[in-house]
């Protein structure tokens, strides 16, 4: 068994690669369809490669739908959500980790309780609240409920707890303010997890469907995930164009993932509660 080719191993590898290709096939098929001419999408048997390769459906989607507007809405809301989540959660976690103040324990337990509250069960009062603020169909309406990321606070707190207290003590003696200690000691020491959390938050915000779907009714305020459901209704049975929409919608985050694969994985592990 030791010498020569490891037969079960090779079979296992072939099976693994085969399964990976099976998993990729829907994505491949979406891309191929989007590159076909409309009449070639319905040939029998199906063509596995586009011939000729046509970008006509992309041109039409980019020219005739609101997709640019949705890209803009998604970009604006996701960037603001990411920024707010990181800043607010890091500051809050820093206070919980390093400062002592009355009511700290109650505060911490209130946050931990948030872990068990499913946001999805709160859509009715949340919607009413935003309606009271006249925030339906607005960026604030999309952003505000998504800023509440208790898990980010918990992760930051764990990392801040691990920073040696000597660092803080001497800075206090030198007369540095809490905020200054935060951004000159605690933040730089935790830049790695900040990046990981920021990327994961951004991807989550970009991909969020349920809340933006509830809070946007006008097409001009929709984000990519919500908007593209309108396009397929408008195009009807135009498969190449519908798949071009799907590819255009999926491309930004897929690219971010392929570039930052390690950070994304790290961030996912932390937010799922495996490492930290």
């Amino acid at each position: 068994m030791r010498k020569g080719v490891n037969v079960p191993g090779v079979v296992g590898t072939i099976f693994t690669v085969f399964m990976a290709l099976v998993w990729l096939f829907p994505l491949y098929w979406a891309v191929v369809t989007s590159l076909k001419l409309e009449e070639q999408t319905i040939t029998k048997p199906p063509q596995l490669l586009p011939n000729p390769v046509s970008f006509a459906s992309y041109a039409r989607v980019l020219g005739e739908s609101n997709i640019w507007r949705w890209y803009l809405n998604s970009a604006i809301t996701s960037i603001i959500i990411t920024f707010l989540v990181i800043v607010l959660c890091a500051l809050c976690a820093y206070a919980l980790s390093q400062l002592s103040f009355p009511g700290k324990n109650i505060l911490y337990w209130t946050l931990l309780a948030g872990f068990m509250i499913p946001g999805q069960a709160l859509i009715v009062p949340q919607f009413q609240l935003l309606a009271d603020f006249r925030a339906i169909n607005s960026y604030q309406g999309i952003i505000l409920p998504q800023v509440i990321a208790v898990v980010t606070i918990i992760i930051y707190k764990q990392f801040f707890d691990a920073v040696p207290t000597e660092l803080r003590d001497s800075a206090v003696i030198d007369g540095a303010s809490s905020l200054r200690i935060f951004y000159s000691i605690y933040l730089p020491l935790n830049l790695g997890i900040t990046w990981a959390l920021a990327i994961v938050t951004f991807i989550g915000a970009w991909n969020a469907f349920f809340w933006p779907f509830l809070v946007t009714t006008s097409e001009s305020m929709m984000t990519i995930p919500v908007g593209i459901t309108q396009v397929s209704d408008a195009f009807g049975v135009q498969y190449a164009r519908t798949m071009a929409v799907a590819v255009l919608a999926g491309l930004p985050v897929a690219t971010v993932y392929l570039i930052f694969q390690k950070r994304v994985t790290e961030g996912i592990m932390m937010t799922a509660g495996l490492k930290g």
Partner: protein
Amino acid sequence: MAQKRQKRQAARTFSSAMPTPRSRRRRLLMWRDALLLVAPFMLLYLLFFIFPTFRVVQLSFMDAPLIGDGPFVGLENYKRLLGDFLFWKSLRNTGYFVLLTVIPNTLLGLMFALMVIRLNRLKSWVMAAFFLPNMLTVSVVTLIWQWMLDSQFGVFNLTLGTNFAPFRDPTWAMPMVALVTIWWTVGFNMLLFIAGLQGIPKEYYEAAAIDGANDWQVFGRITWPLLWPVTALVLTLQLIAQLKIFDQVYLLTGGGPFNSTIVMLQFVYREAFQNFKSGYASAISVILFIIILVASLVQYRVLRVGGGR
């Protein structure tokens, strides 16, 4: 690694720990700083999370329209709920969906993790292939699968020469939504399992190899028991996530055909945003809330036992 760096830095800067000066003024300053640091998040948290938690319970005792209050009706909404066949249907469907996804998705995630972890050069590519669907938003996933499973021109039906329309078939709609969900999310479970597998010390496997254990013995005696905390974590994360199912069902079937796929969260959505009955929708929300709360308590225990936090 980060900790080591911090320690080194600390050692370089300080030779000994210094006592913190504790004057009254300093303490008051610290309280003020803490308040300023905590306030922005806590305000949003209390306003958009804690307040709605109480408000949803209050609304569930009211005959409220979509926006604003309504007359107090006591337990009327809950009584009506018990007699509403659609409520029981949505409850059953949610349970059915959980059944179709949680365990298969966990086992498949474990299988993929075991398959991927033994690869060398191909590892990161294969991992990316399994995980990539997870990075897509739900509406992209459903657009792609609607096209794949199109009854006329979908690639399966064209190849097989059939006209099968799974999302319009009461028997097949839910299993197909489950299948799409597994394709979409199994990569996440795989990642957690890979991390778990990497955490098992190599010495155990070396010892087993010396003792001449076969692959099944190694898996049954070493991998599975040591991986159990991760498995429990994945199972509970799955359970909670799938109880909240809405997006895929709404986009693929709209709850149909004949309400055969309507789930709890969609029932909430329908009553609140289509029938404008917030009180009734809130009563359903409270039930969903309680179910998920129970699942979360289980998760909390699991995480503590698993040493997650």
